[in-house]
């Protein structure tokens, strides 16, 4: 978890960001296969196309900062450093999964790493983020809480209630909107009264960064740095909107009647991983060979995780009754 300093990140760190993005993508491509094979059940929401956001966010957070998100949570889990094996085992509903197989794809979490969970009710995690931040403020800790959400989540009551309260109490939260253009099949302009979603921050007197290029790791890092510094200084909340695009359906089995195939193809041409790879080679931070080696090692990590998950036991039947109460 490299903290940026005045000299900027070293080459190793920059190559590692590439690896994180590739790992998330390969992991999810594998998940899609496993879903089709029936090894993963329930809902599966892929983050493919959005990887730069969480990797940039994570790169400016301290290890003891907080992060929380919605159901599209594999990227957060992996960027946060949860074990790839534990996450894959959760996908397969195994006892070795990060949530003991009880949560599945939408409910990854790791308390030790202060990843407070993927939450499946749209907007439901936003007041939780406020509360997590409240506890830190209350205890005099200078931690930052980062709350990620989709564009669609900004239209629900939870969002407005949580933001207002966070603003009134100057809670240390960075509210991150991952604007991937759609909430399921509903385009932003059909669901949100303002297309510049971060304008909603104005209603709560909150500073914001609008329309950050969510495909550009460096721009994202710059804005996240500003946001985190502001929030850590005790001034209160900050909002950041990243413009991005999800390449896959909302979840598996989405008929995608709401967009044309060529729209997806056009967007894919501006890929965050390809862009960052090009930056690295252009600036001679990595060679093509280096990148290939990184890709290979990420693939191997995913394969090992699958093997681990497949060989792991299912939860014991008695596990059904544990953890209902303390």
């Amino acid at each position, binding site marked *: 978890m490299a903290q940026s300093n005045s000299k900027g990140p070293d080459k190793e760190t920059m190559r590692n960001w590439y690896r994180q993005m590739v790992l998330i993508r390969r992991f999810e491509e594998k998940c899609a296969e496993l879903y089709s094979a029936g090894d993963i*059940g*329930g*809902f599966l929401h892929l983050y493919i196309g959005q990887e730069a956001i969480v990797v940039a966010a994570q790169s400016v957070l301290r290890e003891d900062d907080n992060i929380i998100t919605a159901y599209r949570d594999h990227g957060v889990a992996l960027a946060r450093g949860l074990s790839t094996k534990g996450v894959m085992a959760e996908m397969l*509903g*195994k006892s070795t999964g990060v*949530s003991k*197989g*009880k*949560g*599945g*794809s*939408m*409910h990854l979490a790791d308390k030790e790493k202060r990843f407070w969970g993927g*939450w*499946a*009710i*749209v*907007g*439901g995690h936003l007041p939780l983020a406020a509360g997590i931040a409240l506890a830190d403020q209350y205890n005099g800790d200078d931690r930052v809480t980062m709350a990620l959400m989709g564009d*669609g*989540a900004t*239209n*629900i*009551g*939870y969002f407005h209630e949580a933001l207002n309260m966070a603003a009134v109490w100057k809670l240390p939260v960075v509210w991150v909107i991952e604007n991937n253009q759609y*909430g*399921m*099949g*509903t385009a932003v302009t*059909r*669901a*949100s009264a303002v297309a510049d979603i971060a304008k909603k921050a104005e209603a709560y007197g909150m500073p914001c960064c609008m329309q950050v290029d969510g495909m550009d790791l460096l721009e994202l890092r710059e804005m996240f740095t500003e946001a985190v510094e502001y929030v850590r200084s005790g001034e209160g909340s900050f909002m950041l909107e990243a413009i991005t695009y999800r390449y896959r359906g909302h979840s598996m089995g989405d*008929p995608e*009647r*709401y967009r044309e195939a060529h729209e997806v193809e056009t967007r894919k041409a501006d890929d965050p991983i390809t862009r960052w790879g090009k930056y690295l080679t252009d600036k001679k931070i990595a060679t093509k060979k280096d990148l290939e080696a990184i890709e290979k090692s990420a693939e191997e990590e995913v394969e090992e995780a699958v093997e681990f998950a497949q060989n792991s036991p*299912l*939860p014991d*039947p008695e*596990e*059904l*009754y544990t953890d*209902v109460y303390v």
Partner: protein
Amino acid sequence: MSTSSPAQTAVEGKTEVKTYRQAISDALWEEMERDERVFIMGEEVGVWGGTYAVTRGFYDHFGEKRVRDTPIAEMAIVGTAVGAAMNGLRPVAEIMTINFAFLALDAIVNAAAKARYMFGGQFTVPMVIRTTTGGGRQLGATHSHAPEPIFAHFPGLYVVCPSTPYDAKGLLKAAIRDDNPVMFVEHSTLYQTRGEVPVEEYLVPIGKSDVKREGSDVTIVSYSKMTVVALEAAAQLEKEGISAEVIDLRSLRPLDTEPVIASIKKTNRCVVVEENWALYGVGAEITARIQDEAFDWMDAPVKRVSQEDVPLPYSRELEQSALPNAEKVIKAVKLVL
């Protein structure tokens, strides 16, 4: 209209086989064609065609005025529908799944269910909240509820839970024509099921339980998906020489226990199957009614088959082990015999 005809609801006249999904879709379509005031609003009902494909083709045919995609805003979906209903329209508000109806609980309970009574009968709220319920699909704890009894707790609201295509179509049409707010709860695992549906128009009155299978040894009471489970159990019991009568409540409010009581006077034994948790559930209510009205007729205590008393986990086997199934029903039946 036939209301309590035995054995899978014998249907008169010409029929065709339809899925539960198609039957519901047809009901909506016919009512929208019949009455201009009927319109649909909800998440993904339009361009997407409904997340369970119930409203596929509606947006193109009826247009965006009558098939309205909403933001993700359950509180406002129901609240807006209540206002529109009070002011003369007949909204069918869709809540994508019943799990999200918790976000709209206040609008359902404090507005839809109270607007009439609280103002001395001045207002009517002719609206339907269509939603889908149930677990068993590995969707995890927040997305697998079957909380119909919660909604049935409140006077002023009807709660309808069909188990067959026939009932689904007839009840939905009745719900749309009813001047009271109706929560219409479909089961997410029943959409592909098939059954005979009349070609001619028909309605199924709200508030009439239905004997889905006649029998003489034990009465199994259920609703929604659990009726299917009960019928499966009854078919297996028959092979062992045990004759089970299966009663489908069809609506939890109004709750029609007349056929249940009549059946118990014949079988003297009862098992209730419910997908939700037993605590404060439908089984508890049915048992209380039996105590009141058929105490002397009972030869054994009522048994309840319900979900294990835990939130539903993701892992497949674990989740399945928590849900009621035919095997568990058979076991309960044998306990009361």
